[in-house]
């Protein structure tokens, strides 16, 4: 079998859902970075501005980060 034949065989047998899984995982990985950045920004702003609502907002951003990590793990397991 020539390299061209094996390449064509690879293209024909290629499972599109594997590519979709890689793209979803990459997107969710980027989302975790984004959620982490949000947490840092919120902590910075909460340090700058003292207020009653700081604690609930900090907790919400932490929940947001944990939720994004859980979705990443869920995608890793079920996809």
């Amino acid at each position, binding site marked *: 079998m020539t390299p061209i034949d094996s390449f064509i065989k690879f293209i024909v047998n290629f499972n599109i859902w594997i590519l979709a899984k890689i793209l*979803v995982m990459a997107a969710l990985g980027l989302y975790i970075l984004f959620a982490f950045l949000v947490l840092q920004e919120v902590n910075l702003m909460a340090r700058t*501005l003292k207020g009653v609502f700081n604690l609930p*907002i900090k907790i919400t951003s932490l929940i947001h980060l944990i939720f994004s990590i859980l979705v990443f793990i869920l995608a890793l397991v079920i996809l």
Partner: protein
Amino acid sequence: MLMVFLPLILKVLPLLNFMPSRFQIITVVMWYLLILSFVFDRFLSWFFNVYIVTDERIIDVDFISLVYRETSQVALDKIQDVTYKSGGLLKGLFDYSDVFVQTAAEIQTIEFELVPHPAIVVKMINQLIIQEEQEKIEGRVR
């Protein structure tokens, strides 16, 4: 609110049926993740969009998005004019409007968007400017 219940449409219109069921689940979960992110982004943009007035300077923090923040500050002795524009039924009824602080600094106008009691804000800033000018004349340094 409509966005929250949008995945229920999938029961009537099978738009995601071309996907395997595991991808359908992840799509719905990702949809809710995006909604959470959008709501949180809008809330924080409003909550952290603050104006700080001290006896030395005015600081304007514009939390444009979750990853982009713009902070500008101007010393009170650089302020040339403080005005506010009011008008409209709701603004008049609830006493809120935009306050404009004209400066001689690089940032020419600092805009306080939709602040409550704009007349009091303008009065307070003007008092602080007079106080700052007096301190300058008397040579007091803080």
